[in-house]
């Protein structure tokens, strides 16, 4: 972990906290060794990591909750109704719903495979939260700055069909297995164009690190302009990857009850739902960082605010698409992925290589 930005800030707080805790040991009890242990670098580092992770989690969590609010409000307007009403502008509706799922009964159906049934939502939420700490929101607001951060995000993204299949199979229900199968087919198919369109960005930027990619965009031009085809391919594939409405076959509620999450209820369902929006957060964050210049913008407000504003705009596009289009069939979704998006992604990769060899980037 780099020692700047958020980490530096939290380190100061953690050191101060530990000094407050160590004070009575040093001055009242006279146990200098215990007081010294509290302010030793290892303990403070550990506390700093925990606090920084907590802050990043809460920011990601609040953004995801706000995404849900934005979706319900915008969809309401698109459908000519008012959307959520609880609290100021309906902002508190999601917290009320979260509390409701929290106090519901935990139902485990009799015939399910209990261990896998309980493990699947835990895996899903763990993967989603891992993506939160890998995606930087600004030059100072990040938890981990890995040299190959982009690759790690996609490695975590590609684990999701595994957990979904596990959930669908262990529920011991025809609808959940069908939903899980559809999810696996769709997610594996759309991994190919998404990785190819990201490869074009990596060719132009010459790096797998988010900070380098954003720095190149600040120096030259946002990658949406040279790679507009890649942007469109990435947008469509991202919607398929997070299973939103034109491509929400795995949970098609008219055919499959609730898809692979049919048997889940109460707080497990709440966790699955939250993980879906955290994946939406990750997808819109990736689009902003890779194509829309990340935190690049006029400097009269913080760069973190620019990233978030762009993320909300990208998610607004997702919501608009959801409100305007209807669900496609399995055959259409797979043929779109393999016969249209993949050739387009290859054309986009060719454009990127030509631009790189022509010396524009």
């Amino acid at each position, binding site marked *: 972990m780099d020692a700047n930005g958020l980490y530096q800030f939290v380190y100061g707080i953690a050191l101060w906290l530990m000094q407050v805790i160590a004070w009575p040991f040093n001055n009242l009890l006279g146990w200098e060794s215990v007081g010294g242990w509290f302010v030793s670098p290892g303990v403070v580092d550990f506390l700093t990591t925990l606090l920084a992770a907590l802050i990043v989690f809460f920011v990601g969590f609040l953004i995801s909750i706000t995404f849900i609010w934005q979706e319900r409000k915008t969809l309401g307007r698109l459908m000519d109704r008012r959307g959520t009403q609880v609290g100021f502008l309906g902002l508190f509706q999601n917290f009320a719903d979260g509390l409701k799922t929290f106090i519901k009964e935990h139902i485990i159906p009799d*015939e399910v495979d209990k261990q*896998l049934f309980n493990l699947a939502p835990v895996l899903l939420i763990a993967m989603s939260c891992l993506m939160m700490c890998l995606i930087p929101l600004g030059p100072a607001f990040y938890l981990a700055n890995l040299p190959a951060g982009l690759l790690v995000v996609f*490695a975590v993204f590609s*684990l999701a069909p595994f957990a979904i299949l596990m959930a669908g*199979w262990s529920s011991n229900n025809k609808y959940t297995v069908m939903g899980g199968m559809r999810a696996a*087919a769709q997610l*594996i198919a759309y991994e190919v164009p998404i990785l190819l369109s990201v490869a074009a960005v990596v060719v132009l930027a010459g790096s797998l690190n988010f900070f380098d990619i954003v720095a190149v965009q600040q120096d030259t031009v946002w990658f949406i302009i040279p790679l507009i085809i890649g942007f469109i391919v990435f947008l469509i594939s991202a919607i398929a990857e997070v299973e939103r409405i034109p491509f929400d076959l795995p949970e098609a509620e008219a055919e499959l009850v609730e898809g692979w999450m049919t048997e889940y209820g109460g707080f497990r369902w709440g966790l699955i739902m939250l993980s879906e929006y955290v994946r939406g957060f990750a997808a819109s964050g990736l689009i902003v960082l890779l194509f829309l210049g990340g935190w690049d913008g006029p400097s009269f407000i913080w760069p973190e605010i620019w990233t978030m504003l762009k993320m909300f705009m990208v998610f607004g596009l997702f919501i608009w698409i959801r409100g305007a289009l209807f669900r496609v069939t399995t055959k259409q979704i797979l043929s779109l992925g393999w016969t249209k998006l993949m050739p387009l992604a290859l054309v986009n990769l060719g454009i990127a290589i030509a631009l790189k060899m022509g010396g524009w980037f």
Partner: protein
Amino acid sequence: MSIDWEMVFFIIFAGYTIGSALLVVFAKEIVRNVTWLAFTFIGVAILFIFLGAEYIAIIQILVYVGAVCVLILFGVMLTKRRLSGGGQCEF
């Protein structure tokens, strides 16, 4: 006495990898075997990180764990099984 923490964590994760590799062989249900296989691959990726090869660890997760769900698909599609406590399950 100072403890070599890297050694301790290496032994923990190596034991985890070996244990889940054994469970791949000895578990009864085919989907469970494949699930344990995924956990074995994650353990191998962690061991790669211990060796200082982060890139291979990432690729290990991206390629192998991602491919595991294809195995599950084949396992579910090509084997007949009964729904526990119910009739024949056909897909």
